[in-house]
């Protein structure tokens, strides 16, 4: 650890306005990215504490630390915060904003003011969602899915939470519009579609889902609020409505949303694995096209959440088949990452370790997804903790680890300082082990038949629940060490040059931290691909 000061503080000091307003009114993509990053990490820590409380409640049958109503509210708020305030904006809004324009060779996104507006939408959504916990009839207890008829009848504060989710959807949609336009219009000279870094390709696919699917969430949530206000019976079978239709509308957005969550994570991994293998990404076009395929095919599979809702067998057959199709591009990605590693000169730096953990976790989560996508096994596994374990393997083991990888990979770029590698590796090991113990035990007890969202359970499920809870403690310790280490690195870490990892994408050709407008006077001209490491040398740090 050194106390040397940065030679140049880049976008931290260059701003038309000074002080706090320079941040709150800034349209610079890097400043907005940092704002997002701070909020997102804070939200993650809050929801993590709620998750720990849930696990602690489940350490023994019967009430241990909370009653049933509190438990319902806790898992609902954990879900709402983790989904809408952490995972969906995590990589696209935070790292997308920080990195995307620089990777394209642009000075900012296409609509900088709109970018700031979407951050404010995020903040308003966050405030609404959190105030829903403390006001009105109490914290919402519907689960993050807001299923009718319960969500239109419960006396808890669903209206505020739903309005919050609506604002967050709006924020996500505006970011999507901004990114698609930016990628089409602001590529630097020489930055053809075949030279886009894979992170840009995945953000592009993600942005399309954000544009095409999020409005469906918007209308669904608007209808819930209208239903609660007017009591019209829109989803009430006795009054001409249809409760199953709500589930369809909800999942038409919310299933594609899981690809909003995972695709940018895959992009991060596709940046890190070639860098630390010193090899070009294997199968560039296969990777690019598979991102678009996941986005497209993933939009057609929503009803696999509803096999037990009384759909026709024919519909189940179709949706099951389509679900299996999504596995193909996902598997292409996994095989291509492994092929990139093959005979590479692998450096096990912290970002790389998180990426390798991503591949391991995501393979387990993905295969578990097939067990749920097949109707026969889903009928048994539906609404058990296996489902909870499965989506934590993909969302946390996948996107979460990709987010940590991105933090370890790009934070030195945007702060100009390096964290302690030894502690980073220790925290990675704790997180990795703790994660797998927690959620593997959860999956196992789910196969035995433990239902999800229950605060009480039969005595025979206790052993695995205790294992899972102990795992959650290891996980929490690892996460705390990781965040403290990163924080210390930001404050006091050793200085890094412009390219500490020896990466070949454009953000590593500008100073760390990058200056305002990124590229000085001259716009960059791109002459080689994003994974061409010939002549690229890593700076010492």
């Amino acid at each position, binding site marked *: 650890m050194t106390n040397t000061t940065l030679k140049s503080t880049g976008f931290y000091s*260059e701003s*038309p306005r000074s002080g706090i307003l320079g941040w709150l009114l800034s349209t610079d993509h890097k400043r907005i990215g940092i704002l997002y990053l701070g909020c997102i990490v804070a939200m993650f820590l809050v929801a993590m504490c709620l998750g720990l409380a849930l696990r602690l409640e489940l350490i023994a049958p019967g009430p241990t630390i909370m009653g049933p109503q509190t438990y319902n509210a806790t898992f609902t708020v954990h879900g709402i915060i983790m989904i809408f305030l952490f995972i969906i904006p995590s990589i696209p809004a935070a790292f997308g904003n920080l990195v995307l324009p620089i990777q394209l060779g642009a*000075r*900012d996104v*296409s*609509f900088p003011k*709109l970018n700031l507006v979407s951050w404010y939408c995020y903040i308003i959504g966050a405030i609404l969602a959190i105030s829903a916990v403390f006001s009105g009839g109490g914290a919402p207890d519907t689960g993050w899915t807001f299923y009718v008829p319960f969500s239109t009848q419960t006396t808890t504060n669903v209206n505020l939470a739903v309005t919050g989710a609506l604002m967050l959807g709006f924020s996500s*949609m505006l970011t*999507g*519009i*901004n990114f*698609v*336009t930016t990628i*089409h*219009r*602001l590529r630097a000279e020489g930055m053809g579609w075949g030279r886009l870094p894979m992170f840009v390709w995945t953000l592009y696919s993600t942005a399309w889902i954000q*544009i*095409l*699917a*999020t*409005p*469906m969430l*918007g*209308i*669904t949530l*608007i*209808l819930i609020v*209208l239903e609660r206000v*007017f*009591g*019209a*019976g*829109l989803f009430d*079978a*006795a*009054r*001409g*409505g*249809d409760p199953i*239709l709500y589930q*369809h*509308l909800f999942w038409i957005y919310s299933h594609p949303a899981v690809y909003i969550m995972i695709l940018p994570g895959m992009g991060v991994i596709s940046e890190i694995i070639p860098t630390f293998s010193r090899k070009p990404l294997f199968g560039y076009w296969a990777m690019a096209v598979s991102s678009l395929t996941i986005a497209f095919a993933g939009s057609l599979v929503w009803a696999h959440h509803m096999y037990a809702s009384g759909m026709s067998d024919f519909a189940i057959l179709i949706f099951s088949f389509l679900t299996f199709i999504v596995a193909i591009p996902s598997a292409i990605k996994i095989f291509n990452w492994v092929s990139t590693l093959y005979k590479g000169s692998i450096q096990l730096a912290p970002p790389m370790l998180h990426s390798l953990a991503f591949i391991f976790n995501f393979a387990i989560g993905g295969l578990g997804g097939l067990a749920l996508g097949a109707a026969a096994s889903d009928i048994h596994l539906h609404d058990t903790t296996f489902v909870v374990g499965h989506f934590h393997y993909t969302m946390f083991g996948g996107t979460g680890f990709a987010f940590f990888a991105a933090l370890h990979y790009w934070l030195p770029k945007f702060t100009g300082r390096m964290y302690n590698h030894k502690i980073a590796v220790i925290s990675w090991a704790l997180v990795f082990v703790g994660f797998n113990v927690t959620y593997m035990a959860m999956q196992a007890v789910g196969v035995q038949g433990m239902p999800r969202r229950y605060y009480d359970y039969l005595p025979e499920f206790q052993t695995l629940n205790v294992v899972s809870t102990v795992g959650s403690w290891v996980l929490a310790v690892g996460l705390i060490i990781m965040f403290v280490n990163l924080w210390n690195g930001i404050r006091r870490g050793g200085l890094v040059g412009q390219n500490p990892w020896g990466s070949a994408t454009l953000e590593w050709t500008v100073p760390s931290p990058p200056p*305002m*407008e990124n590229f000085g006077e001259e716009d960059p001209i791109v002459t080689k691909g994003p994974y061409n490491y010939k002549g690229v040398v890593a700076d010492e740090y």
Partner: protein
Amino acid sequence: MSIEHRDDTGARFGMWLFLYTEVILFSGLFILYAVALAKYPDQFAEASHKLNIYFGTINTIVLLTSSLTIALAITAIQRNKIKQTLTLCIITIVLAVVFLINKYFEWAAEIGHGIYPGSDYLAELGPGITAFFNLYYFTAGLHGVHILIGGTLIAVVAAMIAKGKVTSDRYTLLENSALYWHLVDLVWIFLFPLYYLIL
């Protein structure tokens, strides 16, 4: 130090992306309509006859005319006829207000008959008719909100034209507002036959 960046094509491109999202927002309601229609075809026809077709027709004519005036406003600003542009924008806004006033009378009459979401009278008429009127109110209501937003947008742009911030060689903002207005018009073009005409 900021380098002047201007990308009119990009701005229009972004606007079109936004219009896609609006189409999908309304499509959720159209899906609900399609499902309910398949379930209760006879009740839907019966409920449709309770709507006053004159109000609907007048509003259709009003909106189509307003789409014409805003399109003419773009041609006017391209020819640098600022006063004419402003007049056409104001006519568009007036037509939007006429639409909303018309809507107010139409809804007031229906609510006077006891037809509104959650009313006891509707509950007596049965599930099919309830579903029709719920969707009618929510779709037309959402459309009305869009009329308000679109009218406000055009008013803001008109003020900017008057101040000289939107000019004959920098009029993308007016173009984008007009695109939005056309979308609002287009949604009504689907709403009108579905609720008033074809059943």
